[in-house]
């Protein structure tokens, strides 16, 4: 049986990688990719705790589904903003989008 701590370490590593991506990438789409990784690591944690806790208590899985919905909404709006910014400014580099309004 795989110990619970392995899943937690795995998801911590995934979260850190995502955090690095979100903080360090220049491209807006790449930043969103990093955020996706972070959301996934949260899901791994939720499901692992569901499995290793009381399995009849389905809360972990319900929250995972809610996270799916949140991730979908985040990606939809985030990428729409990126496309809109690209159309107006012709760039998707985060550093170059430094005006407060357009």
């Amino acid at each position: 049986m795989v110990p619970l701590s392995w899943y937690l370490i795995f998801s911590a590593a995934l979260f850190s990688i995502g955090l690095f991506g979100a903080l360090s990438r220049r491209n807006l789409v790449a930043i969103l990719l990093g955020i996706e990784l972070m959301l996934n690591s949260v899901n791994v944690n939720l499901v692992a705790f569901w499995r290793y806790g009381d399995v009849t208590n389905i809360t972990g899985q319900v929250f995972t589904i809610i996270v799916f919905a949140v991730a979908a909404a985040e990606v939809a709006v985030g990428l729409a903003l990126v496309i809109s910014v690209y159309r107006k400014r012709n760039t998707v580099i985060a550093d170059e989008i430094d005006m407060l309004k357009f």
Partner: protein
Amino acid sequence: MTIDKIIFLIVAAGTLIAALRVVTTGNLIHAAFWLIATLFGVAVIFAVLHASFLAVVQVVVYIGAIAILFIFAVMLTRKDMRDQGPQLNRNWGFGALLAALAFVGLALLVHGWSGVTKTASAFPSGFDAVSALGNALVSPDAYVLPFEVASVLLVAALVGAVYVAYNRK
């Protein structure tokens, strides 16, 4: 070392390598495909954890929809096929440090916590996660409000995103 530990280690290592490639590779299309590999690895982890429904939903929603959306967005926002310039910003060292700190902190937290020795309990006979989910999502004393709010959230996202992305000429 039992067989499920070996499977877990292989899958976890592959997933993490793919995740690293997501954040380091220069070509954004490749990054999107590496993201798909990562998501698939997470789906396998869900399957190992006996969360069948979530494993399949992970593939349907993340790989089938979100990743495709990413690929579309990358293709819509590129001037040409090659990427120019550095992919990391000036402060990437700071970002790396923060990520490493986050990992070390979380690992220490896991290490110091007494609950990690928990073992997974067997499933009660006749337990079906999908019908338990169905019960939880619609029974009034459980998650009916999040269920309905989720649909409002999705509609808000739909309307907002379409409004923002739509090209008004």
